């Protein structure tokens, strides 16, 4: 065990197992103390490498992340403290490899529940190699104004309140991490504050003991008095008793051992700490307090009187002129984290994204305010989900059924259309599902699949302006625009598209009005006089019927309908539907283990 100071204002640590909050709290403490370098030199996160962004005051810094302890030690040879936030399962192994690094001197182990036999191995190794283990089962420790381990001393408010940003004259050591924080507060109230405070941890065999640290404090000139908070169970306090009796501790020691209540319990009780177990008289709080008192420590009559004893001891030191007045300074303001400031209502910040269709923050996700459970319980279909997420309202069942029919009709159109072809070629090139799917989807546009929107736009415009089919068709021809939704490669007057007939039949049965479809049929009647194959095709049927759905359901205002047509909702219907087929083609090609597709030379006209 080292004999004097463990830390200074330039001490740097390696932090094992990345935890954002404790590291940030260490860096905030550094900034508060006016340290020039951050106290965390590197982070070890097994299996990952790179940098972590953290704040050092107002500025962001990037702290290197290493995959192994060896690499971190090699990269930061001046970092001699190892702060281990590993779980109790892996804490022992990682602590041992840290102790074996020649550049590491102090290892602090936070985990609670490290097996006793493992802790003993660490203790033996540390003793043999003159290294220091703090913990396990501890929050760590702090040297005021210099260096802080992890979460020690809690919030910045508390650190400022307890004046831990600058050194005082009191050395403090306790078993309990929570109580160390409490005592920093008490000590700050009645003395000039902490010089160094260590929580050794609540385990049966802590890596370093109360007396180890008391003896160390005794060697630090700036420490003028020592405060010890022990606990029932174990015999650690007796090594302190011995040290006191042998005169090894020359500075005043104020001590209290908690757990006097254990005598109230008839049978054994396991208190919160593993080491706190009511055993024999030797291990009782009463026995230890008595022994410490007899060895010359100042021991109060109860915990309530502890603070007073500390005050009296400190006041005597002042009278004796042994305390040099502390140079006070106002620590810099730590910028508050935005999230914390918002939570406490101090600041507001504009959001960067707005969303109106769904919410995943509650007990269950909602689509347009409808919770998932009622979507399932009410037996909604895909059409209903589309109506919620696209139109933000529950449309009547005939409408959502119509949407579903459209999706089913448009789901696929064979392997030869451009989208499916692209998907097949991509899948055969060995690409993944998403690449194959989007390569197909990317062909959807003005020439492939885009006609539904156009059909709806033109039919709506012509119908609403009261154009006769003749005026409409000839007007389009004059402008050089093809009438979308009219014309088919093979279908004709005598052999109409089955899909169109199905849609029309459904709409006539269920829709309150089919005026746009009737208009489209009138247009078809006119175009058929020009050519046999200028029939109303499936795009035209869907486009016109969708106009009827929007207008006839009575659930959309005129502006809403215009907007839906303008934005291109109907194209979305085609994209969604066709994705089903494109995914199918991808799987089909993969299942068939088709090789890379290469277009044959013979099928290309090579020419100048």
């Amino acid at each position, binding site marked *: 065990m080292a004999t004097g100071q463990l830390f200074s204002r330039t001490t740097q640590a390696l932090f094992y197992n990345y935890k954002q909050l404790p590291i940030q709290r260490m860096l905030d403490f550094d900034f508060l103390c006016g340290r020039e370098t951050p106290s965390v030199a590197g982070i070890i996160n097994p299996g990952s490498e790179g940098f972590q962004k953290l704040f050092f005051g107002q500025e962001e810094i990037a702290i290197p992340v290493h995959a192994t302890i060896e690499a971190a030690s090699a990269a930061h040879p001046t970092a001699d403290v190892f702060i281990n936030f590993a779980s109790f399962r892996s804490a022992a192994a990682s602590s041992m490899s840290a102790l074996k690094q020649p550049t590491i001197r102090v290892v602090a182990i936070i985990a609670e529940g490290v097996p006793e036999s493992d802790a003993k191995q660490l203790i033996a190794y540390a003793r043999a190699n003159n290294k220091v283990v703090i913990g396990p089962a501890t929050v760590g420790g702090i040297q005021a104004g210099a260096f802080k381990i992890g979460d020690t001393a809690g919030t910045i408010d508390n650190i400022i309140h307890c004046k831990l940003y600058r050194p005082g004259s009191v050395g403090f050591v306790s078993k309990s991490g*929570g109580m160390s924080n409490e005592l920093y507060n008490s000590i700050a109230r009645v003395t000039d504050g902490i010089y160094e405070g260590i929580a050794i941890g609540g385990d049966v065999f802590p890596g370093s003991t109360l007396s180890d640290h008391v003896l160390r404090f005794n060697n630090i000139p700036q420490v003028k008095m020592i405060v010890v908070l022990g606990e029932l169970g174990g015999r650690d306090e007796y090594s302190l008793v011995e040290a006191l009796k042998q005169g090894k501790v020359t500075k005043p020691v104020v001590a209290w051992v908690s757990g006097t209540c254990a005598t109230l319990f008839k049978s054994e009780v*396991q208190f919160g700490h593993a080491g706190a177990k009511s055993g024999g008289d030797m291990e009782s709080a009463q026995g230890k307090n008595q022994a410490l008192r007899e060895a010359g420590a100042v021991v109060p009559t109860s915990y309530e009187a502890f603070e007073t004893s500390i005050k009296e001891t400190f006041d005597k030191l002042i009278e004796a002129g042994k305390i040099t007045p502390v140079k006070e300074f106002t620590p810099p303001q730590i910028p508050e984290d935005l999230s914390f400031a918002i939570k406490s209502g101090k600041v507001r910040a504009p959001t960067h994204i707005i969303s109106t269709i769904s919410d995943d923050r509650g007990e269950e996700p909602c689509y347009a305010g409808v919770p998932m459970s009622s979507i399932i319980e009410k037996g909604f279909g895909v059409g209903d989900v589309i109506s919620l997420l696209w139109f933000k309202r529950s449309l009547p069942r005939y409408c959502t059924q119509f949407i579903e029919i459209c999706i089913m009709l448009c789901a696929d159109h064979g392997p030869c259309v451009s989208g499916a072809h692209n998907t097949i070629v991509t899948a055969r090139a060995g690409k993944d599902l998403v690449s194959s799917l989007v390569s197909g989807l990317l062909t959807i546009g003005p020439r492939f699949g885009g006609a539904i929107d156009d059909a709806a736009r033109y039919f709506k415009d012509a119908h609403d302006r009261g154009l006769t089919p003749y005026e409409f068709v000839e007007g389009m021809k004059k402008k050089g625009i093809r009438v979308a939704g009219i014309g088919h490669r093979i279908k004709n007057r005598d052999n109409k598209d089955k899909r169109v007939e199905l849609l029309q039949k459904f709409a006539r049965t269920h829709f309150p009005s089919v005026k746009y479809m009737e208009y489209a049929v009138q247009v078809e009647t006119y175009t058929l006089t020009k050519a046999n194959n200028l029939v109303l095709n499936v795009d035209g049927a869907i486009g016109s019927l969708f106009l009827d759905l929007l207008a006839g359901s009575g659930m959309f205002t005129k502006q809403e309908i215009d907007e839906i047509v303008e934005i291109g909702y109907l194209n979305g219907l085609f994209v969604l539907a066709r994705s089903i087929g494109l995914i199918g083609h991808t799987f089909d090609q993969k299942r068939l283990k088709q090789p890379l597709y290469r277009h044959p030379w013979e099928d290309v006209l090579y020419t100048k």
Partner: protein
Amino acid sequence: MARKKIREYDSKRLLKEHFKRISGQELPIKSAQIIESTDINELVEKEPWLSSSKLVVKPDMLFGKRGKSGLVALNLDFAEVAGFVKERLGKEVEMGGCKGPITTFIVEPFIPHNEEYYLNIVSERLGNSISFSECGGIDIEENWDKVKTVFIPTGDSLTSENVSALIATLPLEVKGEIEEFLKVIFNIFQDLDFTFLEMNPFTLVNGKPYPLDMRGELDDTAAFKNFKKWGNIEFPLPFGRVMSSTESFIHGLDEKTSASLKFTVLNPMGRIWTMVAGGGASVIYADTVGDLGYAPELGNYAEYSGAPKEDEVLQYARVVIDCATANPDGQKRALVIGGGIANFTDEQKLKEANMHIYVRRGGPNYQRGLAKMRALGEEIGIPIEVYGPEATMTGICKQAIQCITASA
């Protein structure tokens, strides 16, 4: 999580299983366990030696001095053992000031013997102490000066050199066997994460060591690496402690969470109840109530720490409040919700009950947490006194006592 006593039956089970694995030798001990649900006929079928040998039966309840208390019966046949057990199963006895029912017995072959050796291994900070005596048995305490102890530092193994001080005075005929035995037991001790092991006594049967009585403690924090070796191990409560349903509920919560949740009812009729955060602070709160002379009114010991999740704290608080309000008697009661200044536990939790509540807490976000407590007091009309880190930690104990005495 800490050192836990195990039953003699389990100690011997582990010993027998792992003696063979580690030394290659069979340890010829046999033992059977009888509890309330044991089917005697099935047991005999599984352990036929029970009906063919003379037997010893004793309670297996983690307490010692059974021989001196007349709780050991020797040289019985199985029918007599069954009778002995039937007479005592579930009956209360008092041992060392603790009262409790006997629920578990261990039955073994009766071994007439002359030699009684004592062996004890204890885990210590810097190694393990191993003690041995040729004068073991029920009078070991009278013969304590004959016990020899060597200390084996962590990392060292038991060798002929360091063990020699223990066995130097043994007759040469048995010395080799016992040396070998000690080495194997020491290995088992370390290999299975024992923290304490005692045989008082072990004897020799046909020249081979044979443990008659055994006590063991395991480090239950090592369970994660030993679950296979330990098998179906039980960590019984100390004798005299019967876990109430509420206590076992919290115990269950504690085992599932990475945080720490402890709850012990001390006096169900008590009028001061505590719910304190932090392993260190919780003890001090109980101390303070005791210091002020109101220990008998203390209803419970309760501790939660290690950043438990909000719903865990809620469930925990419900139990504390249920227990605290279970026995209304018209007198005032006080619930002390206390704690030190937290290092990392966020302070925006807790719930309420039908009594005077005293709160003192500090830590991340404490202002908001405490403000909520105050608002809650007004809302539900229950007197709640709320303090932050500016007040002393245990001051609310005094107030709580003043409250319950004012109307008493």
